[in-house]
């Protein structure tokens, strides 16, 4: 779609065939790029799932419209569209009772479907205690709407998500990660919008983990801990309300992904025998960071045994084909492997060498663009009898330690940054951090015995 706009800018008429399910997305994209009159034809094709007979029928059905779109003279509005009226956002957007307020927000598409906490002046002011940055400080403009990511807007969405002021430093850092993400196929501009339903997965490292009580133990990725729940939820609202990425309009995920509600974990650095993820990425142990990837899928399995052989053989046997991987090992498994001399690098190399798939599987997959052309760019044919690595670069694998007692291993599988590109952001704390932590750190569930 953006390429059609580029061509129109070069004074050449275009018409774009879009699947009818993408009409809203197309309109949003063309308006967002300043060309609301871009001519497109909604069709049953093209679609990744179309069969040839459907393509033939779809082209026949759209044929006259295609010709017309290239030859019918422009309307006055297409030639010189009326300027878009500047939004006049009111800071205070609504006044009413709780039910009315929740419905008002929901009907505007500003929530994730669950009730939200009212972002009152007082609640937002309290949230802003989590940063020394002024409320009008602009971090940047977030795709796709290029919405202004001010500190106050982050705080409003944080309140709605049920976040505590101590999460603000994490939310600001995580928003920076989105803003500074690489453009194109391996960044937020793909993973936030794609038909692949990628969900942001946030890994928190460093001292802040414990200060804000991010769960890294039993059920680390299950509901029930406010930090794990609210940080991911707030980021989902920030993507929607600041970036303007709405389900079925800009976010064209085919199946959707429950991980988009929230997927946040801390690494159990204290119980890990290895250096923490952020230290591996060049930060000091005393610094706190947030790291993002964009998984599609989450799978867990049991190992064949508790030693390196049993754990890692099961990992390679269960590893699905994808682009980026985060493996979560329990402290016990990590220690068992470390005792045998396994480093994180050894494990990654082992996976790259031993996780393999038949060449026939590669041969049946069409190349998806030059970003994913297949082994060796298909300059050499892969025989069906060959085996090829499932992961070709150890830097595509992250290893963290988390989870409770027991024997399960987790794979968080999907997309993420190109190695060397932005994937981790340092978390900056306000000067009154210790005081703020003291105020909020006791907010933990205390379960009744029964």
């Amino acid at each position, binding site marked *: 779609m953006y390429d059609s706009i580029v061509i129109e800018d070069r004074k050449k008429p*275009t018409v774009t065939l879009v699947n009818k399910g993408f009409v809203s997305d197309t309109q949003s994209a063309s308006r967002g790029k300043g060309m609301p009159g871009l001519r497109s034809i909604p069709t049953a094709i093209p679609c990744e799932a179309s069969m040839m007979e459907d393509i033939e029928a779809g082209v026949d059905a759209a044929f006259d419209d295609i*010709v017309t779109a290239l030859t019918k003279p422009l309307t006055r509005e297409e030639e010189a*569209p009326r300027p878009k009226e500047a939004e006049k956002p009111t800071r205070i957007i609504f006044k009413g009772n709780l039910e009315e307020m929740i419905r008002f927000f929901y009907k505007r598409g500003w929530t994730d479907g669950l009730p939200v906490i009212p972002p009152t002046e007082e609640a937002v002011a309290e949230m802003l205690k989590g940063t020394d940055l002024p409320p009008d400080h602009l971090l940047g403009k977030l795709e796709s709407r290029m919405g202004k990511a001010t500190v106050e807007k982050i705080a409003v969405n944080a309140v709605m998500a049920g976040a505590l002021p101590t999460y603000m430093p994490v939310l600001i850092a995580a928003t920076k990660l989105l803003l500074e993400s690489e453009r*194109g196929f391996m960044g937020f501009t793909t993973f936030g919008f794609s038909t692949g339903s990628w969900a942001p997965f946030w890994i928190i490292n460093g001292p802040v983990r414990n200060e804000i009580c991010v769960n890294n133990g039993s059920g680390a990725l299950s509901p029930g801990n406010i930090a794990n729940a609210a940080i991911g939820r707030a980021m989902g609202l920030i993507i929607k309300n600041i970036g*303007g990425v709405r389900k079925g309009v800009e976010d064209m995920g085919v199946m959707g992904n429950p991980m988009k509600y929230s997927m946040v974990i801390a690494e159990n650095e204290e119980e890990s025998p290895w250096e923490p993820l952020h230290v591996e990425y060049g930060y000091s142990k005393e610094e706190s960071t947030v790291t993002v990837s964009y998984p599609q899928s989450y799978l867990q399995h049991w190992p064949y045994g508790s030693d390196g052989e049993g754990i890692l053989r099961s990992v390679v046997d269960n590893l699905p084909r994808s682009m980026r991987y985060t493996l979560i090992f329990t402290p016990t498994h990590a220690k068992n492997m470390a005792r045998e001399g396994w480093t994180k690098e050894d494990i990654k190399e082992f996976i790259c060498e031993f996780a393999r798939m038949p060449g026939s599987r590669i041969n049946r997959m069409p190349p998806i663009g030059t970003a994913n052309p297949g082994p060796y760019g298909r300059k050499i044919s892969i025989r069906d009898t060959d085996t090829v690595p499932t992961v070709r670069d150890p830097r595509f694998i992250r290893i963290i330690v988390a989870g409770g007692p027991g024997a399960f291993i987790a794979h968080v599988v999907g997309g993420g940054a190109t190695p060397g590109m932005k994937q981790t952001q340092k978390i900056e704390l306000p000067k009154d951090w210790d005081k703020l932590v003291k105020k909020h750190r006791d907010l933990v569930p205390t379960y009744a015995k029964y």
Partner: protein
Amino acid sequence: MSPNTTSASYEVLSPWAEADPMPFRGISPRLDALAGKKIGLLTNSKRAAAPTMQVLKRRLTEKFPSVEFTEFANLKPNEVITEHAGKDEFENWVKGVDAVISAFGD
């Protein structure tokens, strides 16, 4: 929702970010007719894009035998064509066409 939760009144801030309005611009004048023109066929990397164009090319040739075609594919998913290495080739291609039909295989 219980009566107790609905009695209090809340004055709330908007979560929706401001955005600078993007100036709108018009699209290009259309062709007087397709006959005798050179039509560019632009596809992306998705599975149905290229076959769609091949069918369309056949249909257009049947109806407008004097139309010439030239094809271009932007195979870098989600990258605007002028933002990657294929830019010069693309610019030359655009210069040589009278109009473009795009099919994005999503």
